[in-house]
């Protein structure tokens, strides 16, 4: 009987940990422009990187320089937002994601 109770306890604990693992999610969006002509900067790779979570899916700026990343776990530690021109890192800043984050327009 004690063994059965232990199995039920372990199963309950596993299910509870899975439920707690899916915490609140946020998004990050913004618009990149060029200091060359103050126009949009298209085709640049934007991604987030977190010390413990690793790297996010990459996204690319569209013809207006806009980018969006969804399903970003809300964490107390900061993320780094990085922008790459091809493989060259051209921008890196620190952001906190507790919900939706709109970085607005920023030029590089």
């Amino acid at each position, binding site marked *: 009987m004690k063994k059965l109770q232990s199995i039920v306890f372990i199963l309950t604990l596993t299910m509870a940990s899975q439920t707690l693992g899916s915490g609140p999610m946020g998004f990050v969006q913004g618009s990149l422009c060029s200091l060359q002509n103050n126009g949009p900067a*298209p085709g640049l790779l934007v991604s987030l990187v*977190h010390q413990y979570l690793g790297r*996010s899916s*990459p996204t690319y700026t569209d013809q207006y320089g806009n980018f969006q*990343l969804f399903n970003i776990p809300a964490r107390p530690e900061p993320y*780094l937002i990085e922008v790459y021109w091809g493989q060259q890192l*051209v*921008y890196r800043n620190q952001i906190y994601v507790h919900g939706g984050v709109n970085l607005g327009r920023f030029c*590089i």
Partner: protein
Amino acid sequence: MNMFDIAIFCAAIAGLIMVIGGIILIYKGALVLASTDPSSALTIEWKKEFRLNTQAPGIAFFIIGLLFTLTSIFASKPTEIEPINIIGKVAEISEPITIAARSSKWILVGGSDGVVKGKIRPYVEAITLEISAPGYKPINIVHILDELKDRTIHFEQPIQMEQLVTGVVGTQIIDVPDEGAYASVNSPAKFGVSQ
């Protein structure tokens, strides 16, 4: 979890219950794994390729249970997605090119008074390729999958992309104390969905 997944799950559970139940029945003495006369032995035969002969018919419980489990494992094996080949050329460009592919939109029409209720049936009918390169205006090309020959997309002519920016004026990179603790740009994605 759809109905098929539920059926597979139930089959796997049924298989396990049969095996565990068989063991319990043997333990309680309701089922006896004892030899019978060779003349009354249980024989399972399939197309002369498979033949099982046992003098302990109780073992059939285990075999049936195992078949349920194996069938559910076989049925739940994910089908391999056939790749789509992309062949072509982008004219006069030295920057690295990236192609992002996405499927069509599935629109749900339904609901009133703010209540959303309905079904979408995701079926990849067309694929949109977004060709982008740093500083260039991205180009979208749509292809209908059923019209592809050998599941290959050929760009009939070199694609011309319009350059909007030639480079960045200066980098703005903050220092991080332990840069090695962060995954590199080429490491696999662990979270997030891009649009």
